[in-house]
């Protein structure tokens, strides 16, 4: 079962938000060196899945691994791009300030950034075509430019796997193209890119591999195999009525979704 070529392994993962389970027993592996789309409608738990992989939310059950190791062991190889709306862009910082954050390393937070760090940040800014804007206050950027700033920060980290939460939301066509081109370049350099995306109409033909999600795992595999009428119906055909009812009962009764000590390994 264990394949050395896995980038991310998610095992029996359940997560509850405000006591409502949003991910039920998710279990899959995804390969390395490809562009992987995690796709599902709004509220399907896509972002929560990424946060679970990044250790940002408490898990009700299961575990996740990156390159067959715990996140803490491979942190330097992982770059996370949060949703653009998750921060206040009025923060006093320039494009360059934010991208340089990608060079911050927890062990060396007291050191000044080296010339190499600054150079890598500049190169990342160049790659997302924002060099002309590097001294701009981030609030003065368009949504697409802000998304590119986040991407540049991830690029500056020089990771092997890039985990991005909805990078195509609210961006202009130019940014969409810049990001897509970059993703392909990254793939050609052997990097793995995992992208949460909410619909299959746009950019989906760039995904090599898909994980279809709607609270439960619908399907995962190479895009061509997974993209069937049946799977799409299951992903986008609304919530499961019975499941929603059960979720409400769990919330009302304040019930745990896993008994203590009953961890299926």
């Amino acid at each position, binding site marked *: 079962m264990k394949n050395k070529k896995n980038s991310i392994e998610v095992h029996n993962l359940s997560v509850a938000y405000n006591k409502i389970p949003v991910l039920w027993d998710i279990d899959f592996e995804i390969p390395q060196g490809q562009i992987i789309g995690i796709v599902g409608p709004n509220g399907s738990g896509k972002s929560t899945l990424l946060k679970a992989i*990044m250790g940002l939310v408490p898990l009700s059950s299961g575990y996740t691994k990156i390159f067959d190791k715990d996140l803490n062991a491979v*942190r330097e190889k*992982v770059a*996370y791009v*949060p949703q653009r709306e998750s921060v206040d862009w009025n923060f*006093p910082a*320039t494009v360059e300030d934010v991208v340089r*954050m990608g060079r911050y390393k927890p062990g060396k937070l007291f050191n000044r950034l080296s010339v190499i760090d600054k150079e890598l940040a500049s190169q990342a800014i160049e790659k997302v075509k924002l060099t002309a804007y590097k001294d701009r206050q981030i609030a003065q950027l368009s949504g697409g430019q802000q998304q590119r700033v986040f991407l540049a920060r991830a690029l500056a980290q020089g990771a092997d796997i890039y985990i991005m939460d909805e990078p195509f939301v609210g961006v202009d066509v130019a940014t969409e193209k810049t990001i897509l081109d970059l993703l392909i370049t990254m793939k050609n350099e052997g990097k793995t890119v995992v992208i949460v995306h909410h619909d299959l109409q746009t950019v989906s033909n760039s995904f090599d591999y898909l994980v279809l999600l709607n609270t439960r795992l619908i399907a995962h595999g190479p895009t061509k195999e997974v993209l069937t009428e049946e799977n799409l119906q299951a992903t986008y055909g609304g919530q499961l009525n019975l499941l929603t009812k059960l979720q409400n009962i769990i919330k009302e009764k304040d019930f745990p979704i896993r008994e203590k000590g009953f961890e299926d390994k």
Partner: protein
Amino acid sequence: MMEAITYFFTDPIAQKVIMGIAIIGAVSGVVGTFSFLRKKTLIADAISHSVLPGICLGFMFAGTKDPIVLLTGALVIGWISVWLIDYLSSTTKLSADTAIALVSTLFFAIGSVLLSVISKSQNAEQTGLKNFLFGKAATMTTFDIQVFTVVSIAIFVVVILFFKPFQLVCFNHEFAKSIGVKVKRMEFLLSTLTVMTVAIGIQAVGVVLMSALLIAPAASARYWTNRLPIMIFLAALFGTFSSVIGVMLSTMKNNMPTGPWIVFSLFTFTLFTLLFAPHKGWFSIKRRNLSNHKKITEENLLKTFYQLKEEGNTAVSFRDFLEKRAVDTHSLVRDVRRMVKHGFLFEKDKTFSLTESGNKEAARVLRSHRLWELYLTKRMNFKNDHIHGTAETIEHLITPEIEQLLLKELDFPTSDPHNKEIPY
């Protein structure tokens, strides 16, 4: 007035008080900047109210106003209040602001009770604890100031050392966590710095008003810069100036409590900022509106002259103009005179005509107008009778760069949707 100022800079005791309050102001500005950026200004207010019982307990424990014991008491109780707010808002259905209001008022009430217990058992005047409510800088002893200075220097050192993790936690805590920063620990450290700052500040500023010294300098500084290091520096500067001026004013007014005067001078600084800050200040916004308005008026004026010329009228009287474009007569006369002065129009026998440069400028505006109308119909599928209004505004915004793009996109057209010639 001058006498009072010379007094502050020559009298050794007054000098010490000024030094003390200056460093407290600076440290409040620095620490307040992080509270402000984390949108935790209400927590800062809650902490300052909550440390009162800590001060009282410290006094009851030591029996004197020993700054080290009082600081420790304030620190412990301050921490408890932060923890309690956090605990209530994360484990109950109470929202954060409700938890803050409940905890801060409860702690303040406990502090008030302890205060009256102390004043019953001892001479309240003698203890001087009442001064902690609204602050009295002059009651700071040399030893107090020495302790406060050491604490302040420690806070500055921590902020310099932890600048990067603090910046990360304030801007994007999910990202911070993703690269392995211990976010909870950093947040705890930031809360601790806030509690410590409040603890050293309350004797001079008072528990009731201390939060103003944390928040106002940061809020003002944000208006003047877009860089975090500069913002921190400015906040420190504003904090220092406001505190020093506040102390001077309070001393001049028959030794009144210091806190209110510091708040007044903070407010003056903030008001000044709101009025005069670049880009976001009131005057800056007004000036921008005025200059936009002026540009629109002038360009419309020249455009009308050009349109009249197209209709064959090259010597335009005020009446001719008003028939073509209904505007206020007084402002028209004024605007026309100004355009004559600027060399865009010339006058002959009470009629006005475009000069060469006026003609060029008018042609540019009309070109923008007609290009934009064309763009709206061709690219945005607007109907012919809907395009004029939009183009009236956009024509004033089109830069030479945009004009070039429009020309290319529309392949250098010669006439607009109404079949009028596009002037080049």
